[in-house]
């Protein structure tokens, strides 16, 4: 049955504002029942991560209708504890319609052959493992139940019970007004089992690589994509912008693979701990002082190479870094070009080599030829030039610089392949 024909009428006749006004702040069961039985009967489903506080929502579902479809995004990157928890909740709550969604194996093979996409490009990782697999399922339902809560992050501070999405679907948030304390109380009141990792400090649990422990008093979702300028996984973006606003484009400062993306890395700061830092470019001299700690640090790390730093001194450790940032303190300081070539050509460093600092459009073609494959750009005309793909470039090369082949038709002695 296609529901999309009647759904807008129904929504419009009710009015989303009126709908939101019908329920008491804490009347989670009422909200869910209204949606599942009155507004969109047979047209509502749930996506659950089976995370630290998923039990509350699933308990509500079980009360309203244990046969409501519950989709679980089996990203392939979950903690084993999460997979066990799925089974625990299914049996304890009596849920009879839990469906696992898997990423397209072709996508995984193509975009994440080594399983490390989360490290280099978490947005894309979420995309192939969550957004893409969910999309065809989303189309089948006019209403979706989520476990999102206002208190969880700043961006969700105005989250209502009912949201109208940009594609005329309805998003139902029964727990919108629940606080952390409400959730805990609810769990106690109903004897709900804890996620096995909750006691170990995980407050918001997603995929294993992108989830870390949250400190006391910290935003519970701070442990998600820690160190990244990333708060949402992408599947919540498609809602009324006033509620779950995506990051503004200006925050996407990293230009890579033809697009500006959120930069997973943050600047190294005084006081950062080499043993536990994540997604930081540790300055080369600091790395040399704390080499053992960095090598033992399990998290993704980058290296910051400034002019004058001897890249030779870290040759053996280059493989430890997911990204190497080459500092251009002024565009006129050309030492970074030599550093980049040594990395790319002599040391065969194949991960991200990014230019940071005074990165301007007129130097970018030279940087790229020397092996730089990512750029942190703040200069607005340069951003525009990149977006519009109109760099001032001479596309013909007289020198065999870099790791790519100089095109046929150029000087024979300047081509790499003789």
């Amino acid at each position, binding site marked *: 049955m296609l529901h999309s024909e009647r759904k807008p009428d129904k929504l419009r006749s009710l009015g989303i504002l009126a709908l939101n006004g019908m329920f008491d702040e804490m009347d989670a069961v009422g909200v869910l029942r209204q949606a599942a039985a009155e507004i969109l009967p047979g047209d509502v489903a749930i996506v659950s991560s089976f995370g630290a506080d998923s039990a509350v929502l699933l308990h509500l579902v079980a009360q309203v209708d244990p046969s409501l479809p519950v989709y679980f995004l089996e990203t392939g990157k979950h903690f084993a504890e999460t997979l066990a928890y799925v089974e625990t909740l299914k049996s304890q709550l009596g849920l009879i319609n839990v469906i696992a969604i898997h990423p397209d194996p072709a996508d995984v093979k193509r975009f994440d052959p080594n399983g490390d996409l989360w490290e280099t490009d978490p947005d894309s990782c979420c995309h192939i493992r969550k957004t893409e697999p969910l999309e065809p399922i989303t189309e089948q339902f006019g209403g979706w139940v989520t476990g999102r809560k206002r208190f969880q992050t700043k961006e969700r501070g105005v989250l209502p019970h009912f949201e109208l999405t940009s594609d005329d679907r309805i998003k139902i948030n029964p727990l919108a007004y629940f606080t952390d304390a409400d959730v805990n109380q609810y769990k106690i009141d109903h004897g709900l089992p804890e996620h096995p990792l909750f006691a170990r400090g995980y407050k918001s649990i997603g995929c294993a690589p992108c989830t870390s422990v949250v400190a006391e008093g910290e935003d519970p979702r701070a442990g998600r994509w820690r160190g990244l300028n990333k708060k949402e996984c992408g599947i919540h973006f498609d809602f009324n912008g006033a509620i779950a606003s995506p990051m503004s484009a200006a925050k996407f400062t990293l230009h890579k693979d033809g697009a500006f993306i959120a930069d997973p890395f943050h600047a190294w700061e005084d006081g950062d701990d080499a043993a536990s830092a994540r997604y930081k470019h540790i300055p080369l001299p600091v790395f040399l002082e704390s080499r053992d700690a960095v090598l033992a640090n399990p998290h993704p790390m980058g290296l910051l190479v400034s002019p004058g730093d001897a890249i030779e001194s870290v040759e053996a450790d280059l493989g430890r870094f997911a990204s190497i940032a080459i500092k251009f303190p002024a565009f*006129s300081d*050309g*030492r970074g*070009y*030599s550093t980049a070539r040594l990395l790319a050509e002599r040391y065969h460093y194949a991960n991200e080599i990014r230019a940071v600092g005074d990165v301007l459009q*007129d130097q970018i073609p*030279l940087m790229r030829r020397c092996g730089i494959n990512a750029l942190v750009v703040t200069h607005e005309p340069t951003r525009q030039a990149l977006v519009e793909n109109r760099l*001032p470039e001479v596309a013909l090369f007289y*020198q065999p610089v870099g790791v790519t082949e100089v095109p046929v038709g150029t*000087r024979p002695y300047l081509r790499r392949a003789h």
Partner: protein
Amino acid sequence: MYRYDEFDAAFVEGRTAQFADQVKRRLSGELSEDQFRPLRLMNGLYLQLHAYMLRVAVPYGTLNSRQMRKLAHIARTYDRGYGHFTTRQNIQYNWPRLKDIPVILGELASVEMHAIQTSGNCIRNVTTDQFAGAALDEIIDPRPVGEIIRQWSSLHPEFSYLPRKFKIAITGSPNDRAAIRFHDIGLQAAANAAGDVGWEVWVGGGLGRTPMIGKLINSFVPNEHLLAYLESIMRVYNRYGRRDNKYKARIKILVHEEGLETIKGQVEAEFAEVRGGVLTLPSEELDRISAYFEPPAFPSQSATRIDVARELILDPAYGRWLEHNLNSHRQPGYASVTISLKPVGGAPGDATDAQMDVVADLAERYSFDELRVTHEQNLVLPHVAIADLREVYDALVASGLAEGNAGLITDMICCPGLDFCALANARSIPIAQAISHKFAAPERQAEIGDLKIKISGCINACGHHHVGHIGILGVEKKGGELYQITLGGDATQDASVGKILGPGFEADKVPGAIETLVDTYIARRQSADETFIAAYRRLGEAPFKEALYGNG
């Protein structure tokens, strides 16, 4: 000479389009002057005292008539009817308008010319012996290797933002006419034990405020490894050259401060990594480029000698021109002719559009369509049949280009000085003009013989004063211009840096001071065959100092 193929042409077109876009962005205000500066500099565009100045590259100083006519056309159409040939074998225009620059570059591209890397902190135009491919004393024509270096260094992505500018000179003759020991890198043709021709590599020479004679860093680099070796030097310089002080940023300072052995060790370590890699030059490629520089098919000449002594009697001016302005050619019956751009009272190195057209015509008619620019700011017709010399001379006379003073006291190198240059402390062209008036009499010049005067209007030494037999340096003292005199400089294989003789002179006293030095030399020389520099080396500075300043 070298001719662009499609690749070269497309490359220069691409660069012209790129710079046209940058000019557009500057005119629209999108680019600030700070951001535009390095971009315009890499395209040869300076902001001078009064206007923009465009410097056009003449790779290894070689031109054909079509190119020279285009240079004349640009002088006529976009400038004030003249151009200035420089010590880098280039030509610069002093009055172009910014909005015309892209058009001018387009005009240049149409004759296989450009302004790429004629300024900025990058590898500059490669210079060489003006008699390359013609001189009797030559081991090998250096221009094919010069062309390969030009290509390798053009928009090199690693070496476009060096600590400072970088100049390479190359000579194929043991008699160094390209001042290779005063360049960042100097290349001198040399044969190894097996008789193969390769290159001595000299590094760390330069003039400027800290003159240094280049040091031999490698006595033989074969052609196949030359680019790899050059890239090794460049990488060491790019990484370790000083960037904290622009006056200490040239490679000469790095070599001086670190010591040749340290730098040599770094270069050799780098060379060990890159040697035999992608920069290896296949002999077929060198052969392919060399084919462009094959000597013309010289028709055999019945006249293989000219009696200069006889001509001196019949027509002294012509005789003097023959005596001084010819260089021995490897082909019997031919000579290389120096066209002096140093007329009495003129601005050294300047040529009008009409003169450029005349020279182009002469090249086409008498010199197998070839021309050279010399680092001493003259022009050369490299391949003139001895039988044609009189016709060439007569045509030059008609255009005011027949000064027979090559190598003489009035054949001065002179920077533009305070009349044009934003960096200058003192005027230099008027000093050159005053000296040339003082020594205008041809007999007097002939009596003095070979004597190189070089004049700079500031410490940056664009007029090469450090290597003048007599050097003149303009300085600013208490708001006025003073001129220091140095003696004993030499830019050739017997390289030496001149020494300051004593306190400076005011402008109007300079010609008299030079005359005193010259008179002292003539009085003390052993014979007319002992040149000024030879006499100075034998006598030391004392008699000259005493003549100028007294013995108090």
